[in-house]
């Protein structure tokens, strides 16, 4: 289920920018083959725009990670405790 690129990757060819942006996630996930990893890193070394793009993806991931969980309201917390007690009582009864 790999994304179909408009410009398909060919062996022994350099990666262009439009391909590089589609490989960023596989790169960050450590899922690129050794050959593709070499070509991806070679592209980045010569392309400040794609280097910036990678930095933006990392920043996006970091900012998404900062989305804090909304706390439970005390009322909802009470509901869950009630749920537990109800279940617990049922357990004792059997």
């Amino acid at each position, binding site marked *: *289920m790999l*994304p179909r690129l408009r410009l398909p990757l060919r062996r022994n060819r350099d990666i*262009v*920018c*439009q*391909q590089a942006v589609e490989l960023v996630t596989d790169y960050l*996930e450590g*899922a690129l083959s050794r050959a593709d990893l070499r070509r991806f890193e070679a592209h980045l070394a010569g392309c400040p725009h794609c280097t910036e793009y990678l930095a*933006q993806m990392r920043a996006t991931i970091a900012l998404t990670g900062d989305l804090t969980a*909304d706390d439970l309201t005390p009322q909802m917390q009470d509901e869950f405790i009630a749920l537990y007690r109800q279940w617990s009582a049922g357990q004792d009864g059997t």
Partner: protein
Amino acid sequence: MDQETDAELLGRLQAGDERAFAILVRRHHAVMLRLAAGYVPSMAVAEEVVQDTWLGVLRGIGGFEGRSSVRTWVFRILVNRARTAGTRERRSVAIGDWVPAVDQSRFDATGHWTAPPERWVEEAENRVNAAKLTNRLRSAVGELPVRQREVVLLRDVEGLSSEEVCGVLEISEGNQRVLLHRARSRLRQVLETEFGRA
């Protein structure tokens, strides 16, 4: 006290400790609610699904053998219940058509940037009104297709490993990466727009 691992808390819960239950619920509630909301028509139903999930956890607690992590187990129960309760799921299981990470108009015919990304990373990190950015990002996550949202919530918001995400959603590593890629690419676009340089 909140530093206990999920596994420790589950052990206490198995021994009948009500407080352990309260801590587990508090720890995982928000992401569970958001996950459930992707499948069902209203937050009220999502809350019911979450409650129903915890009831399922309590009922199944004797049978939990620790083969997966506690949250993988709990989230999988949640996703199964949400899918059963939901009506939206049937339409959105498919991975969907390929959408480019960056609009094709920003490259020339040979695939090189014509409208390269402008720099905003430092600005994003030092941003004074971070709350506004966070709100924009939060609503952008909410607007993602449900499968992408699931993956990004579990991976990037909740911090599960890719292996755990595949376990919860019962998808392959490859599909997980495709969904993650689309979601992150979309969120980057949203941030770029937010900095006024799309």
